[in-house]
C-alpha cells in the first residue's frame, strides 16, 4: 500500500516563466490522533493557478491552511515535513508567522468581512502592518478594490457597513482585503461555495486577472471550476496527494484509477 509518491514524480521540468514558488516536501499533518495529510510533496508555480480537488474530508483544505500556518491555531495540531517558500522553510525555527501570513494571504469559504465599514475592512491589513496612512491609505484602499473589481460598486459606500454588500460583493471585498497587504501567494478555500453562479463567474474572471501578479491556489468541490481556472490540478484522497499535473491532462487523461473514478463522478 505505498500510494504516496516520492517528490520526483511530480517535479515537472522547470519553466522559466513560472519558477517554483512553493516546494512542499513530505508534509504530514495530524489533528491529535487523526492523520489528515500523508507525505504530501509537490511544487507550486509562481503566477499560475493551482487547483486542489477531492471529496469532503480528503485534506485539501487542511493542506491549504498548512501553507500559511493557519493550522497552528488548532489545539493538538502537529505538522512534519517542509514547505519551502522561495526556498525557505516556513516551518523553520526563525520564521515570523505574522510576516509569513502577510506574504501568503487567504480567502475563506464563506465571506467573512469584519463588522466595520467597507473602507476599514480593506484598511485593516495595511494599518496593522503600518503600510500606509492618510491619503496613501485611501489610494491603497482604492487600488485594492479596483484590483478586486469591486471599486465601481462600492466607491460611494466606503463608509457603509460591509454587511450591506451582497454575498458576492462581500467575497470580493475579502479578496480586496487580502490584496491590500500585497501578498505574494493567495490561498482560496472554496471561495465560491456560498455564492450564486453569476458571482462565481466574477470571482473566476477576477482570478484570471490576478494571476498576472499573484500565485493563486484554490480548493474547490467543483471540478468544472478547477478545469476552467487552473493550470495545474492536484487530487487528494484520504490525506494523500494521489495525482498532480497539468489540469488539461488530469481532466482528460488521469493516470490513476482513483482520480478517474472521482472526476467521472463514480464517488465523492
Amino acid at each position, binding site marked *: 500500500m505505498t500510494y504516496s509518491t516520492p517528490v520526483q514524480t511530480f517535479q515537472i521540468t522547470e519553466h522559466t516563466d513560472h519558477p517554483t514558488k512553493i516546494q512542499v516536501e513530505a508534509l504530514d499533518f495530524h489533528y491529535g490522533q487523526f492523520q489528515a495529510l500523508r507525505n504530501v510533496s509537490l511544487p507550486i508555480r509562481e503566477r499560475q493557478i493551482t487547483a486542489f480537488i477531492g471529496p469532503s474530508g480528503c485534506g485539501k483544505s487542511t493542506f491549504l491552511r498548512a501553507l*500559511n500556518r*493557519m493550522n497552528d*491555531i488548532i*489545539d493538538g495540531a502537529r505538522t512534519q515535513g517542509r514547505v519551502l517558500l522561495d526556498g525557505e522553510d516556513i516551518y523553520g525555527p526563525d520564521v515570523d508567522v*505574522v*510576516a*509569513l*501570513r*502577510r506574504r501568503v*494571504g*487567504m480567502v*475563506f469559504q*464563506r465571506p*467573512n*468581512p*469584519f*463588522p*466595520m465599514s467597507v473602507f476599514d475592512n480593506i484598511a*485593516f*491589513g495595511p494599518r*496593522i*502592518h503600518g503600510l500606509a496612512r492618510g491619503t496613501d491609505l485611501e489610494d491603497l484602499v482604492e487600488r485594492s478594490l479596483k484590483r478586486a473589481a469591486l471599486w465601481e460598486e462600492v466607491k460611494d459606500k466606503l463608509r457603509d*457597513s460591509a*454587511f450591506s454588500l451582497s454575498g458576492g460583493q462581500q467575497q470580493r471585498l*475579502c479578496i480586496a*482585503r*487580502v490584496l491590500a*497587504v500585497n501578498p505574494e501567494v493567495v490561498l482560496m478555500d472554496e471561495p465560491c461555495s456560498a455564492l450564486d453562479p453569476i458571482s462565481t463567474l466574477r470571482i473566476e474572471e477576477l482570478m484570471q486577472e490576478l494571476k498576472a501578479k499573484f500565485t493563486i491556489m484554490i480548493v474547490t468541490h467543483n471540478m468544472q471550476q478547477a478545469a476552467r481556472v487552473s493550470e495545474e490540478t492536484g487530487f487528494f484522497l484520504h490525506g494523500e496527494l494521489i495525482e498532480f499535473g497539468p489540469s488539461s491532462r488530469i481532466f482528460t487523461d488521469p493516470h490513476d484509477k482513483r482520480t478517474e473514478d472521482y472526476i467521472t463522478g463514480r464517488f465523492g
Partner: protein
Amino acid sequence: MMPDGSRGRGGAWEAKRRAANGLMWVVAVLATLAALVPLAMVLYYVTAQGLPALNLAFFTHMPKPVGEPGGGMANAIVGSLILIGLASAVGLPIGILGGIYLAEFGNNRFAWAVRFAADVLSGVPSIVIGIFIYAIVVMPMKRFSALAGGAALGVMMIPTVIRTTEELVRLVPISLREAALSLGATHWRTVFKVVLVAAKGGVITGVLLAIARIAGETAPLLFTAFGNRFWSTRLDQPIASLPVQIFTYAIAPYDDWHAQAWAGALVLVALVLILSVAARYTTRGRFRAVR
C-alpha cells in the same frame, strides 16, 4: 387529523385531555400574572408616592436641616454618579479583560477556578462585600470614603461583567478570527480590533446591566461610602448616595423626609429602568453584526 388511538378511546377521553390542556394554560397565565402584579404594584406605588415630592429642587438643592421644609438630594444624586463611575473604573477593566482571558485562553484549570470564583462571588451577599472592603480599604485609611464605596460596588460588578464578556466573546464566529489572523494580525490585535468590536453591543449590554444592578445597592455602602449630609465630591471623604439617603430618610420619624425618600426611590427606579432599556436597545443590532 387525530391519531387513530385517541378516536378509539372515545369522546370522554378526548374531553379530559382538552380540559387538562385548558387548565394548564390557565395556570400558566395566572402564574405569569402573579409574577407581574408585584412589579406593577411596586412601579405604581413608587410613582404615586414619589411623584408629588419630585420637583426641580429635588435634583438641584441640598438637604435642609430637620424641620425646614423643601430641599433636595442633589448631593446624593451626584454622589451616586461618582460611586458608579468609581465602581466602573474598578469593575470594567477587570471584568472585561478577565472575560476576554476566559474566552481566549480559558481551557485550563486556572480558568476553571476563575469561572467558579466569579459564580461564587456573584452569589455573595452584598453586605459581606461591604465588610470585606471595610477591612481592606476603610480600616487602613482610617475613614469612610467614596473610594471605598466605589471599590465595594466595583467588586460587585466583576462577576456579571466577566461572565457576560466571556459568553459574548465566545459567540464571535471563528471565521472572523481567522480572517484577522490570516492577514497577519497578532492574537491580541485580533481580539481587540476585531473580536471585541464584533462583541461590542453585547458587552455594553452586560456592562449596563451590571451598573443597573449596583446602582441600587445599599448594604455595601453602609460602612464604606457611609453617607454625607453635605456637598462633597472628594474621593477620600464619605460621600452621599441615593440608596443610603433613601434608607436614612425612610427610617427617620419625619413625614417630609418620608416623602423625599419616595422621590429618591422613584429616581432610582427610573435610573435602573433607563439603563435596562438602553441595554435592550444596544442588543438589537448584535446578531446583525456577528451573524
